[in-house]
């Protein structure tokens, strides 16, 4: 290669460096702007949403956590569960009776039981549709054997 070719390659590389740097700077700017927007949206959301941790214990050693989940303020445990992982239920005079959580339907010897954590697990004293979740609540669904209960 002659000197002229080297010069041309150098200038061409300079051009691509300028273009790539400009592109990178712009992308970085866009990223930071989106990050700021995201933080602003989150802070606005905090006013009318609650952040909860939801745990599903399938009774066979498998436990799934859905941490820091944002749900609408005033939602019940049932609403939160439906939003987070899906749940089916039947309504009765006593409230909603859960027939499946995350697709797992209990057989005749099991049922789904919910509890909250506050200095230890406390079993829900009302139906899942009767208890409204609050910011910071830790909720557990347990696939429970009738004999154990």
């Amino acid at each position, binding site marked *: 290669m002659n000197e002229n070719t080297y010069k041309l390659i150098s200038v*061409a590389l300079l051009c691509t460096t300028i273009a790539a740097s400009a592109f990178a700077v712009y992308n970085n700017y866009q990223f930071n702007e989106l990050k700021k927007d995201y933080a602003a949206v989150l802070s606005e959301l905090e006013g009318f949403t609650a952040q909860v941790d939801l745990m599903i214990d399938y009774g066979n050693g498998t436990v799934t956590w859905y941490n820091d989940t944002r749900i609408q303020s005033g939602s019940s445990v049932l609403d939160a569960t439906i939003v987070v992982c899906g749940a089916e239920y039947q309504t009765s005079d006593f409230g909603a009776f859960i027939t499946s959580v995350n697709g797992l339907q209990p057989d005749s010897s099991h049922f789904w039981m919910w509890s909250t954590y506050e200095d230890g697990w406390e079993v829900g004293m009302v139906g899942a549709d009767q208890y409204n979740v609050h910011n910071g609540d830790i909720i557990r669904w347990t696939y429970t054997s009738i004999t154990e209960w």
Partner: protein
Amino acid sequence: MDQPRLDPRKISLIAILAATAIATNYLMIGTLNIKLMDLIVFTSGYLMGSVMGAITGGMVWLVYGTLNPFGFSLPVFISTVIGEALYGIAGGFFRGKGAGSGFDPWAAVTGFLLTFVYDLITSIVSGVTAGVPITMALITGIPFMLAHTVSNTVFFGFGFKPLVNSINKVMRKDE
């Protein structure tokens, strides 16, 4: 002492090239920052020297900058006239480098660098005029700058030699 007389053919060529640049600007009004004007001004500088090239660039912006659908701003107008004149001046310095036909890599990289400088100048002036911090003006202008530099790189690379050859052919016919 006899003053060197201006060649009327040169004057008419400046007028034709300036008119072509203005016409293509209005034709391509929808494609923001993608214009054939810079190549035409650069070519005029190449064919007639830096001074004539700068005059062509200035003339184009005198019309296009005044009758501009995006509005008129004096500082921006001055910066674009100066920026466009740079293409003409650089064209003059490029003389003797553009012989032959086909893609010209030197013209392509020159187009890129000139456009980068042009966009830098106009973005800074636009930012200062609009009261926007210069850094912000430069960053938000990057997509437009990239469109301008990339399109000019292509136009200069592929269009410079055919344009020079065509104009030379027409000018020679008139001799």
